[in-house]
C-alpha cells in the first residue's frame, strides 16, 4: 500500500517519517511551481460560469496579471461580450471540416503566447477533426504541462463518473464527458450556483443560450425536479472535493485522520456493456470512501481470447476506468474468481464490486458461477453487487465475429462435396454397407471438414449430413419423412458429434494461431536482443531497433534520436527505413516532449499516418520509435505487452550505448586532462628556456652595445637565432601533435616513390645532418607505396633527427626500407649508445626524454612518429641493436597492386616535338 511506510512511522512515535517529509516537500514544491487548473463548476447551462470566470479574470487583469482569453463563447449575450472588452483574446484557428469552416481554439498559438493564465470555456468541448487532440480537456492538460494556468468551465453532467446518474435523472445522455482524473487534477474547483427557480426565470427571459440540438430536450432537461437533482449532484461533487482537500490538509499536518484506513476497492471488469456503469459505480464508491480503486480484468490464457467486438468493448471499459482515475490490472488465469481473490488478498483490497449476474441460471450450472465462487472465497472482503445499467441497451449487441470475416466459400464447398460424395458412395454400396457404417462415414466427413476448414463449414457439414442421411438412407428413401422415431436419436447424435468436433477443432486452431503469434513475437524479441548485443553506439541501436520494429509491426519504422538542434529537422536524427515527414516529425516531437505515445490510434494527433512511441528511461526520454504501418497498431493486451517489451529492450540498449559513449568520453577527457597537465609543465619549461636565452642575449645587445666586442656580439646573435629556431621547432611539434591527436587528420594516402619522401626529408635535415655519416639503402625496384607523403616526411625527419641528437657525431646512421607482402618495412638504425634497458616503450610517451638527450629535444618527436604510423594502421617499435646502437622499426600496410617502375599506364610519354 502506498501509505504503508508513513503509517508505520507514525505508529512508533508521532513524528513524520523523514522520507515522507521529503516527498511532501518535493510535492509541495512541484505544486507551487506547476501550473494551476481552476474549474468553474455548475449544475446546468445558464448558471453563470463563464460570466463569473470573466469577471474574476478582469479583476486579475486590472491587477496586472497576464490573462488571455483562449476560447470563450459569448453565445451572443451582451453582458458576456461586455466583459470580454479589455481582455486579450487569442485569434481562433480556422479548421476546415467536411467543407465547413469551423473556428477552433488555437493550441499552438496559446503555447507560443504563453500567458500566465489562459481562459478556456467549456472543458468538455469536442475539438474539430484534425485538431491535435480530440478533446479540449486534453488541450488543457497540455497547456498545464507547458506551465500555463488554465481556467475553465464545466457542467456536472459532463463529469464522466456522474454521466449515467445524470442520464437516469434527465433521460438525456451527454456524449461529451471529462474524465474525473482531470477534475482531481484541478487545484481549485469553484462552484457557481444559482437557485433553480432563478435559472428557470432566466431561461424564460431568454437569457440562457442553448445549442440547437439541445432545444429539443429543453423541456425534458429544464424541469424543476431535474434541476434540483443536478444541483444536488454538483454540490455533492464539490463537497467531495472539499472533503478531499480537508483530508489532504490533515494528512499534511499530521492530524491523525479518522478515514477508513486501508480501504481499497476492486471492480471486476469484463467486456460486457454493463461494465461501464459498474466502473462508474465503483468510482463513486471509492470517492465516497476516499479510497484507491482498481479495475481488474481476468484474461483466460490463449485459447479463450476474446473476439473483435468484445475485445474492443473491454478496451473501452478499461480505458474508462483509467480515465476515472482507477488503476487497471490485467490478471491471467483460468479461474477468474480465484485470480481476483488472489490479487485482492495480496493487495489488501477491502471491497470487491461485481455486477449482478444477468445471464440464465443454467450457464452457472454448466460453467460454474463466478459470482458464487467469489462470494464463497471472499472471506473478510466485502463483495458489493451493483446492477448493470439496463439503459446499456443503447449499445448494440455484439455482432458475430464471422459477420466481419469473408465467407469461407471453399470450406462450405468442401462440406457440400464431402457430404454428397459419402451419400453417393452409400447409395452405390447400399447392399454392402450397413446403416451405422454410413453414419460413421458422415462423421468422418464432418471431422475432415472441421479439421481443414474450421467451425462453420463443419457445422454446415453436420447439418447437411443429417439431411442427406435422412434423405438417402432412412426409409422411406428419398423423402425427408421419417417413420421410425428412433432415427431422430441418430440425427441428434450425429449433429451433436458434429458440434463437439467442430468446437474442439476450432479451439485447437485458435490455440495454434495464438501459439504461433506468441512464437513469432518471442522470436522477434529474441532477434532484437541478439542483434542489440552487438550494437556499440546509439545510432546502431536505433538502426537495429527500427528494422526489427518494422518487421514486427508490419510497416516501416524509424528510431528518432535527439540530435543537436539545427542538425536535423526538429532536432532529430532518424535511423531506419521510415523517413518521417514534417507531420510525423511533429508527432514524434510531441511524443518525445510529453513522454506519451502519439499519432495513429492514440488520443493525440490520431489523424497522423504514423504512430510514435517514446523510449522512456526513468523520467528521461531517450528517443522516439516511429512506425508507419498500413493499419492501426494492435491494441490487445498481448500485442501491447509485446510492444512494451520491444520499447523496453530498445531503451535499455540505448541507455547502455549512451553510458558506453559517456564512459568513453570520460576516459578521453581524463586522458586529455592528463595530457594537458604534462603538456603545460613541459611547455612552460621548454618554451621558457629558449625564451630566457633570447631575452638575455637581446637585452645585453640593447643595453650594453658599446662594451661588447664583435665576437661577443656574434655569439649573442647566434644564441638568439639558435634558440628562436628551437622554439619554432617545439611549437611546430606541438601543433603537429595536436593535429594528429585531435583525430581529424586522416592520412591522405597517395601512391608515391619512397625515395621521393626520403629525399625531401633529407633535404629538410640538410643543415642538421651536415657532416654526419648517413647511409640510405632503398632498393632500386622499390614499388610505389600508398602513404601520406607529408606525414611520412615528418616521420623520417623526426626519426633521423632523433638519431642525430642521441648519437655522437661520428656514429653511423642507416635508413633501410623494403616492401614485402603489401607491407612497407622501414628501419632507422644508429651506432650510438643505444636505449637504456626498459626504455623501449617509454620513448614513445609524450614529453619523455632520454638521458642522452642533447639540447633542443622536446620529447614529442617519437610520439608524433607513433601517431603517424598508427594513423596508417601500422606499428613502430624501438630496440637495441646487436653490436650497439638503437633501431626503430616501422611496419605499415601499404596496400596491394602498387605500381612498379615508371609505367604510368595511359599517360602519353611522347609529345609532339614541335612543342618542346
Amino acid at each position, binding site marked *: 500500500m502506498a501509505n504503508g511506510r508513513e503509517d508505520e512511522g507514525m505508529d512508533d512515535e508521532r513524528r513524520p517519517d523523514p522520507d515522507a517529509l521529503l516527498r511532501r516537500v518535493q510535492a509541495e514544491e512541484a505544486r507551487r511551481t506547476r501550473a494551476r487548473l481552476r474549474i468553474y463548476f455548475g449544475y446546468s447551462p445558464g448558471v453563470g460560469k463563464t460570466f463569473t470566470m470573466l469577471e474574476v479574470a478582469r479583476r486579475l487583469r486590472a491587477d496586472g496579471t497576464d490573462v488571455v482569453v483562449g476560447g470563450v463563447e459569448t453565445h451572443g449575450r451582451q453582458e458576456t461580450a461586455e466583459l470580454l472588452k479589455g481582455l486579450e483574446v487569442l485569434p481562433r484557428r480556422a479548421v476546415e471540416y467536411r467543407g465547413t469552416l469551423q473556428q477552433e481554439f488555437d493550441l499552438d498559438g496559446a503555447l507560443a503566447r504563453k500567458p500566465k493564465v489562459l481562459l478556456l470555456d467549456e472543458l468538455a468541448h469536442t475539438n474539430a477533426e484534425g485538431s491535435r487532440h480530440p478533446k479540449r480537456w486534453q488541450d488543457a492538460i497540455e497547456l498545464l504541462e507547458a506551465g500555463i494556468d488554465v481556467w475553465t468551465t464545466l457542467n456536472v453532467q459532463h463529469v464522466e463518473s456522474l454521466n449515467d446518474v445524470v442520464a437516469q435523472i434527465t433521460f438525456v445522455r451527454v456524449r461529451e464527458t471529462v474524465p474525473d482524473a482531470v477534475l482531481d487534477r484541478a487545484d481549485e474547483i469553484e462552484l457557481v450556483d444559482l437557485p433553480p427557480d432563478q435559472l428557470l426565470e432566466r431561461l424564460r427571459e431568454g437569457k440562457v443560450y442553448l445549442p440547437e440540438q439541445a432545444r429539443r430536450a429543453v423541456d425534458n432537461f429544464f424541469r424543476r425536479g431535474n434541476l434540483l437533482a443536478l444541483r444536488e449532484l454538483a454540490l455533492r461533487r464539490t463537497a467531495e472535493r472539499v472533503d478531499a482537500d480537508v483530508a489532504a490538509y490533515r494528512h499534511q499536518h499530521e492530524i491523525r485522520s479518522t478515514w477508513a484506513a486501508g480501504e481499497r476497492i476492486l471492480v471486476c471488469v469484463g467486456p460486457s456493456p454493463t461494465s461501464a456503469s459498474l466502473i462508474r459505480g465503483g468510482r463513486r464508491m471509492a470517492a465516497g470512501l476516499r479510497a484507491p480503486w482498481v479495475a481488474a480484468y481476468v484474461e483466460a490464457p490463449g485459447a479463450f481470447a476474446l473476439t473483435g467486438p468484445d475485445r474492443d468493448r473491454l478496451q473501452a471499459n478499461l480505458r474508462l476506468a483509467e480515465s476515472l482515475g482507477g488503476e487497471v490490472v490485467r490478471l491471467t488465469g483460468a479461474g477468474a474468481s480465484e485470480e481476483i481473490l488472489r490479487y485482492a488478498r495480496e493487495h489488501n483490497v477491502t471491497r470487491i464490486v461485481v455486477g449482478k449476474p444477468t445471464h440464465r441460471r443454467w450457464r452457472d450450472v454448466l460453467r460454474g458461477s463466478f459470482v458464487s465462487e467469489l462470494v464463497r472465497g471472499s472471506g473478510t472482503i466485502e463483495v458489493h453487487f451493483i446492477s448493470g445499467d439496463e439503459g446499456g441497451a443503447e449499445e448494440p449487441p455484439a455482432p458475430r465475429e464471422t459477420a466481419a470475416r469473408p465467407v469461407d466459400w471453399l470450406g462450405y464447398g468442401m462440406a457440400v462435396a464431402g457430404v454428397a460424395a459419402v451419400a453417393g458412395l452409400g447409395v452405390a454400396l447400399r447392399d454392402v454397407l450397413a446403416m451405422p457404417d454410413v453414419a460413421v462415414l458422415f462423421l468422418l466427413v464432418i471431422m475432415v471438414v472441421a479439421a481443414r476448414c474450421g467451425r462453420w463449414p463443419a457445422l454446415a457439414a453436420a447439418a447437411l449430413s443429417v439431411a442427406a442421411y435422412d434423405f438417402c438412407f432412412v426409409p422411406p428413401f428419398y423423402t425427408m419423412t421419417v417413420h421410425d422415431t428412433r432415427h431422430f436419436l441418430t440425427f441428434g447424435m450425429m449433429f451433436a458429434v458434429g458440434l463437439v468436433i467442430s468446437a474442439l477443432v476450432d479451439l485447437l486452431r485458435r490455440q495454434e494461431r495464438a501459439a504461433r503469434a506468441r512464437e513469432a513475437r518471442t522470436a522477434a524479441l529474441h532477434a532484437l536482443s541478439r542483434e542489440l548485443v552487438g550494437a556499440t553506439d546509439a545510432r546502431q541501436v536505433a538502426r537495429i531497433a527500427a528494422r526489427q520494429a518494422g518487421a514486427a509491426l508490419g510497416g516501416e519504422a524509424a528510431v528518432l534520436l535527439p540530435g543537436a538542434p539545427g542538425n536535423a529537422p526538429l532536432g532529430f536524427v532518424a535511423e531506419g527505413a521510415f523517413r518521417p515527414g514534417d507531420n510525423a516529425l511533429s508527432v514524434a516531437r510531441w511524443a518525445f516532449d510529453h513522454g506519451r505515445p502519439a499519432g495513429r490510434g492514440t488520443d493525440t494527433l490520431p489523424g497522423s499516418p504514423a504512430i510514435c512511441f517514446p523510449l522512456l528511461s526513468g523520467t528521461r526520454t531517450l528517443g522516439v520509435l516511429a512506425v508507419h504501418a498500413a493499419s492501426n497498431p494492435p491494441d490487445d493486451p498481448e500485442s501491447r505487452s509485446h510492444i512494451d517489451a520491444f520499447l523496453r529492450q530498445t531503451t535499455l540498449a540505448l541507455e547502455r550505448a549512451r553510458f558506453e559513449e559517456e564512459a568513453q568520453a570520460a576516459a578521453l577527457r581524463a586522458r586529455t586532462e592528463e595530457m594537458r597537465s604534462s603538456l603545460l609543465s613541459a611547455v612552460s619549461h621548454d618554451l621558457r628556456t629558449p625564451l630566457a636565452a633570447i631575452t638575455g642575449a637581446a637585452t645585453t645587445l640593447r643595453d650594453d652595445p658599446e662594451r661588447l666586442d664583435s665576437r661577443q656580439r656574434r655569439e649573442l646573435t647566434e644564441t638568439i637565432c639558435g634558440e628562436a629556431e628551437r622554439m619554432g621547432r617545439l611549437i611546430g611539434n606541438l601543433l603537429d601533435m595536436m593535429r594528429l591527436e585531435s583525430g581529424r587528420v586522416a592520412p591522405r594516402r597517395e601512391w608515391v616513390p619512397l625515395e621521393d619522401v626520403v*629525399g625531401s626529408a633529407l633535404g629538410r635535415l640538410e643543415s642538421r645532418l651536415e657532416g654526419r655519416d648517413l647511409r640510405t639503402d632503398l632498393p632500386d625496384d622499390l614499388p610505389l607505396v600508398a602513404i601520406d607523403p607529408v606525414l611520412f616526411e615528418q616521420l623520417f625527419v623526426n626519426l633521423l633527427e632523433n638519431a642525430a641528437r642521441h648519437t655522437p657525431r661520428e656514429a653511423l646512421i642507416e635508413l633501410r626500407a623494403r616492401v614485402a607482402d603489401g607491407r612497407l618495412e622501414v628501419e632507422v638504425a644508429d651506432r650510438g649508445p643505444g636505449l637504456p634497458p626498459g626504455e623501449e616503450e617509454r620513448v614513445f610517451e609524450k614529453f619523455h626524454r632520454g638521458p642522452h638527450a642533447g639540447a633542443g629535444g622536446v620529447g614529442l618527436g617519437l610520439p608524433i612518429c607513433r601517431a603517424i604510423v598508427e594513423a596508417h594502421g601500422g606499428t613502430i617499435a624501438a630496440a637495441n641493436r646487436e653490436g650497439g646502437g638503437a633501431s626503430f622499426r616501422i611496419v605499415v600496410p601499404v596496400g596491394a597492386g602498387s605500381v612498379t617502375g615508371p609505367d604510368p599506364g595511359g599517360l602519353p610519354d611522347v609529345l609532339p616535338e614541335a612543342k618542346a
Partner: protein
Amino acid sequence: MSEEGPRVLIVEDEPEVRRFLRTALDVQGFRVVEAATAKEGLAAATTYNPEVILLDLGLPDGDGIEITRKVREWSRVPIIVISARGREDDKVGALDAGADDYLTKPFGVNELLARVRVALRHAVQSASPGGDPVLEIGTLRIDQSRREVRIGEREVKLTPIEYRLLVLLARNAGKVLTHRQILREVWGPPYVGEVQYLRVFMAQLRRKVEAEPARPRLLLTEQGVGYRLREG
C-alpha cells in the same frame, strides 16, 4: 636608400613584422611601401606599381588569396606569400591562385632575400620571352636549340616528357611549382589531377640527373606542394 632599388610592397597587419621586413629590405637597397590592410594593399599595388609584393594571408579585412587573384587579373608582378599558416593546403592554395612563392613564418632574412631575388629575376625573364636558349644552373646545362642536356661533361638522354619537365623546372629555377602547375604545363590541363604520374617521372628523372637519387641536390621535393629546382 637607393632611388634606383626595386620597389617592394609589404602587405602585413603586424607592425613588428613590417618593421623587421622594412629594415632588412632597406639595408639591401629596396624601396619599401607598406600597407596594413587588404584594401590599402590593393590600392598601393595599383598606385606604386611595385616590382615585388610580400603578402600576408591573414589580414583583418580580407584573405591574401583573394588579393592574389585580384592582382593577377591585371598584373604579373611577383607575389611572395608570407604566412603563419604552415599547412601544405594553404601553400598550394596560394600558389595555385597565382602567388610565385610561399614563406612560412618564422623565416630568416637570408631566405626571404633569396626568394625576392629569384622572383625579380623571373619577372625579368618572363618579360622577354624566348630569351637565352641555353639554361645553366650549377653543373646542369640545357641547350634548348639542340635539345641537349648535360651534367658537367656527361650528356643525359631524356625522354620527351622528362625533357619538358626538366626545362620547365629549370626555367623557374628556385621557385616552387605546384603539382597542378607542372602537370598542366607538361601534360596538359586534363591531367592536373594525376600527381602520382608526376612523381614517377620525377623519380625517373632524378635517377638520370642526380648522383644520389635518395639525396637529391637539384630536383627538390616540397612535400605535399610540388617541386623546385635548386639554384646554384
